[in-house]
C-alpha cells in the first residue's frame, strides 16, 4: 500500500541571485512499513524533499499525495492540521517543548487532537515505555541527554499513529551509542507497529540499518535500492 506518492516534483529557490533547483524532478513512492533512508551529500536536497513530503513546503512543480490528500490543494491552516493528523516529525535537534515534561511532550499532539485524558495517558505511558523511558515521565528536556530527548521526540511523533514518520538527520547530534539505541528503537517500532519511517542522513550507521536507500544528487534520484539486512 502506498503511503506517499511523489510525481515529478520540483522545488526551485529564487531568493538568491542564482536559481537553485533543490529538488529537480523526483518521482518516488513509499510503501507502508518502509524503513527508508535518503542519503546524499550536503546540499543535495534531502531536507527539501522531506519538507515537501511532510507538507511543510509546497513544490514549484509536480504533485505529492499523502494518505489520499493532494497537498497542493490544502490551504496553509489545513496543511497544519494535515501534519498534526498524518505526519510524525523528528528533527535533528530542539524537538521538545522545554517547559513540558517528557510525558507531556509525548502527549502534546494527542492533546492537540483532543484525545480524552485516560486514553492519552495510556498511550503516553505506552510510548514512553517503548522508547525505554518509563522512568523519566516527569523529566524536563533539559534533564535528559541528547539521545533521550530524541527518543522522547520519536515517542511523541509516533503516539498519534501517523501515516509515517519523517526524521531529518535524527542522529546527527548523537554519539554512537545513543544513535544505535535510537535506531534499535525505531527498528523495533517499525516492526511492531508497522510504522513507516523516512529518514535523511549522511551517517553511515543509519544507512547500514535501512532496508531501502535512496540516493540524491543535485536534487535528482541517482539510485533507489532495497536491501535485505536481516
Amino acid at each position: 500500500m502506498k503511503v506517499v506518492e511523489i510525481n515529478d516534483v520540483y522545488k526551485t529557490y529564487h531568493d538568491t541571485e542564482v536559481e537553485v533547483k533543490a529538488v529537480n524532478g523526483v518521482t518516488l513512492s513509499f510503501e507502508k512499513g518502509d524503513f527508508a533512508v535518503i542519503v546524499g551529500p550536503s546540499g543535495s536536497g534531502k531536507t527539501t524533499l522531506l519538507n515537501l513530503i511532510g507538507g511543510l513546503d509546497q513544490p514549484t512543480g509536480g504533485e505529492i499525495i499523502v494518505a489520499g490528500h493532494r497537498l497542493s490543494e490544502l490551504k496553509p491552516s489545513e496543511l497544519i492540521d494535515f501534519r498534526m493528523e498524518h505526519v510524525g516529525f523528528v528533527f535533528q535537534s530542539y524537538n521538545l517543548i522545554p517547559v513540558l515534561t517528557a510525558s507531556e511532550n509525548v502527549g502534546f499532539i494527542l492533546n492537540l487532537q483532543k484525545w480524552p485524558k485516560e486514553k492519552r495517558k495510556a498511550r503516553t505511558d505506552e510510548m514512553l515505555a517503548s522508547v525505554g523511558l518509563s522512568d523519566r515521565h516527569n523529566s524536563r528536556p533539559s534533564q535528559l541527554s541528547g539521545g533521550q530527548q530524541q527518543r522522547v521526540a520519536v515517542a511523541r511523533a509516533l503516539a498519534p499513529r501517523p501515516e509515517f514518520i519523517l526524521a531529518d538527520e535524527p542522529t546527527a547530534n548523537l554519539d554512537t551509542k545513543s544513535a544505535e539505541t535510537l535506531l534499535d528503537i525505531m527498528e523495533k517500532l517499525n516492526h511492531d507497529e508497522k510504522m513507516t519511517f523516512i529518514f535523511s542522513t549522511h551517517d553511515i550507521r543509519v544507512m547500514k540499518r535501512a532496508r531501502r536507500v535512496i540516493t540524491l544528487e543535485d536534487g535528482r534520484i541517482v539510485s533507489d535500492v532495497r536491501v535485505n539486512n536481516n
Partner: protein
Amino acid sequence: MKDYQLAWRNLWRNRRRTLITAASVFFAVFFALVMRSFQLGTYEKMYRDVIESYTGYLQLQHTDYIDESSLDNGFVIDPEIISRIEGDPNVTAVIPKLESFALAASGSRTQGVMVIGMDPEDEMKGLNIINRLVRYRLTPKAVEALKAESLPGRTAKLLDVFVNESFTDEASLISILGIGRTDTSDVLPLFRKHAAFENGYLTSADSGYAVIGNGLSEYLHAGVGDTLVLMGQGYHGTTAAGLYIIKGIVRMPQPEIDNRFVYLTLDDARYLYAAPGMATSAIISVRDTEDDDLVMTRNRLGQITGDGLAIRTWKEMNALLLNQMEADNKSGAIMIGILYLVIAFGVFGTVLMMMAERRREFGMLVSIGMQKGKLAKVISMEMFLVGFLGVAAGVAGSLPIVFLGYARPLRFTGEMAKMYEDYGFDPVMPMLLPDTYYLWQVVIVLLILLIAITFSVRKIFKMNVINAVRA
C-alpha cells in the same frame, strides 16, 4: 495541558526576564500613579483654597459681570431672591459680596488692591477666611528672643531662614521649622510666648476697619492698628475714598490674592463705593460640590434668578487658574508620556528578544501541527500576564502611599518650605485619592501591551516554518 497552563509555564522559564519586564511595568505604573496623585492633589488643594476663601462654589452675578467684572455690572440685592436661593436643598448659605478695585496707601507706599465687602457673620457661614489669620510671626525681635531659649539645633538654624515669615497655625509651624514630635510640647510654648501675633477679625458691627492680606501688609509696611487709605471710583463714576484701621492680617492662598486683599464689612464697602443695597455677586455655599451637583444646583437656581442674573460655577470664575493648572497638567502628562515611552521600548525590546530566541521552538510547534492561532493565543497570554502582574503590583504598591499622602499630606521643611513660601504657596503637597487617573494608567499600559501583542501575533502568522526550524 490547557493553553493558559502552557503560557504560565513559559512565563517562568526565563524567570529573570519576566520579573524584569514586570518590574519595569510596575515601576512605570507606580511612579506615574504617585506622581499623578501628587500633581492632581496639588491642583485640587489650590482650587479648594481659592473656592473656600474667595469665590465659593457658585455665585449669583449680573450676566455681564463674568466678562467685565466692574462695579457697574453690579446689582441690587433682592432679599426675596436670596431667601429663595437659600431654600434650595443643596444651598447652605448665601453671602452678598461687593468687590471692586481701589488704590491703597499706607505711609508712603501705595498699591492697587481689590476691596471685598461682605458681612463677616454671613461670610463665616460659607468661607473660611478666619482660618487664615496670621497667628505667629517671626519678627527679628521674636527670633532673637527664641534664640535665647534652648531650641533644638535644627529649628534654631531655620529661624534665620524664616525671619519675618508668618504662620497661620501650629501645624505648619511644626512642619516648616522641623520641630520634632518629641520636642513639640517643649518648643511650642516658647513660640506662643515670643512669636504670637496679635490679630483681630471683623465683626458685623465694625465700621472703619479692614482685614488685609499678609502680602499686602508686607508691601505697604502696614500692620495691625495702622491706617489704610482707600481711593477709587465708586458706582457710576463717583469718587470713592475712605480711611480704615487695619484690624487683622490673613494669609490668602494665592499670591495674586494675598498681595491685593482688602476685606471690609459689606456696609463699609457699599458706603465707600456709593452703592447702597448693591452687590457685585452673592457667593452661594453648597453641600454637594461635585461637578454634577453644581450643574444641577445651578440649573435649579437658574429658575429663581430670572433675567439679568446668572449663576456661575467656580470653574467659570477661575478660568485663568484652571488654564494655568491645565498647562502644568500637560507638562506632567508629557513627563509621564516619556516615562511610558521608555517603558514601552523596554517591553518591546524584551518581546523582540523573546520572539527571536523562541523562533525554532515556534517553528517546531507549527511543524508538528499546532495552529498559528493557538500559538499566538499562548504567546498573547504570556505577555498579558506579565503586563498584568506589573500593573497589579504598581496599583497595589501605590495605594498605601496615596491613601497616606491623602490622610497626612506631605509637608515640607526648611529650605524646601522656604521656596514654596516665597512664591506665596503653602508648603504642602496633598495627594488625590484614586480616581479616573488610575484607570488611565491601566489603559495606557494595556495599550502598550496590545501593541506588543499585536506585533508578536503578526510575526507568528508571518513566520515561515521552514526557515524557523532551520534557524
